[in-house]
């Protein structure tokens, strides 16, 4: 991980370099991408949540996306309506 001043001193830019071997070759990569589990997608989720925690102090969650930014199982989402009493457990699982 690298932390560098952003252009014009507007904050800090965070760079992550990740080396990995994806099982299953091109097909495996396509499947992982479809399920939102491609490392670059997961990294995008992590970096956005990291920015939220640093700048706002928490991960932003909505009724539709109670786990916050997450490429995995992004759509269809929970409808944009309050979660029922049982749902939080299920949804957060």
């Amino acid at each position, binding site marked *: 991980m690298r932390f560098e001043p952003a252009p014009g001193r*507007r*904050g800090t830019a965070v760079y992550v370099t990740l080396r990995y071997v994806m099982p299953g070759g091109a097909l495996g990569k396509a499947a992982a991408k479809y399920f939102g589990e491609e490392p670059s*997608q997961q990294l*995008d989720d992590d970096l*956005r949540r990291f*920015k*939220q925690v640093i*700048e*706002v*102090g*928490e991960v*932003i*969650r*909505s*009724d*539709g*996306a109670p786990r*916050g*930014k*997450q*490429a995995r199982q*992004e*759509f*269809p*989402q*929970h*409808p*944009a*309506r*309050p979660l029922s009493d049982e749902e939080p457990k299920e949804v957060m699982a």
Partner: protein
Amino acid sequence: MKITSTAICGSDLHLLDGYVPTMQKGDVMGHEFMGEVVEVGSGVDRDKLRVGDRVVVPFPIGCGACSACQNELWSCCENTNPNAGVAEKMFGHPVAGIYGYSHLTGGFAGGQAEYARVVLADVNPLKIESDLSDEQVLFLSDILPTGYMGAEMCDIADGDVVAVWGAGPVRQFAMDSARVLGAAKVIAIDDVPYRLEMAASQGYETIHYSDTDVRSALLELTGGRGPDKCIDAVGMEATHGAAHVDLYDRVKQAVRSETDRPHALRQAITSCRSGGIVSVIGVYGGFIDKFPAGAWMNRSLTLRTGQCHVQRYMGPLLDRIERGEIDPTRVITHRLPLAEAPHGYHIFKNKADGCEKVVLKP
């Protein structure tokens, strides 16, 4: 919060009519709402918000900390949209979370409801401490700031002629704001007679676009130059006086090769005087055809736009309401219980029963 008043907006019609992707069955709509705080989360600063406070909630959710919020570009907040990935694919960069406005803007439950969860509650809501009625302050959540921003983006100079497309509630406020900001003449363009009458009753000139050639009418009213500033308060569901043009865009929109019908925008660009400003507050969601780039480029026009940065305007506009300079209640034609919302949507969409703006009471 427990909601005491909420309203139906022209933006809700774009959702209802299916032109904004990522709506899901069961979504709670509504982004214009106010009420009373009944519970406060553990992270909220008690000096800023307590149980019992009366608040108006701005429709875009800001975080107050990112570079966009710090520059008062609240509707472009970098942090509040958990579905930033989808928004980024659609728009190139993500946009802020918005209540009740599809999953593209975060999947937040809206305010056409009895209760709502307000996110980052110590940053966004405006506390009302005077005894102004709900109806006087409710529209601070969206349409009053939106209309005002539409006029402000025009950089109105004394003596300017300002033309506004669309005589919906947003437009009425854009016209009131243009006048407050110094416009000499304000012209309303629509084809719904009672909406034009509402504009005429405030002393604005009106043009009925189905019976008149709008560009020529505007030339008549401006000594042949065209309006100095033009505001598009219609957006993606414009209709067109000439049936063949309307049909062209309807077909393209129906087969999804164009998402928006930009008649008002095209006309605003071709009508505006050279060197003028075209300010767009009508909502567009995707892609348009036949953008008059030649008129825009060769005649040195400036195009400005945005979802309203509501938080920027709430305080100053509340002051103007308190001083009696703007009366937001003038656009309300219908007050209905929340249970009659479907009827409210019906008359607002179909311009029936003289409907200009519907307020719902849970």
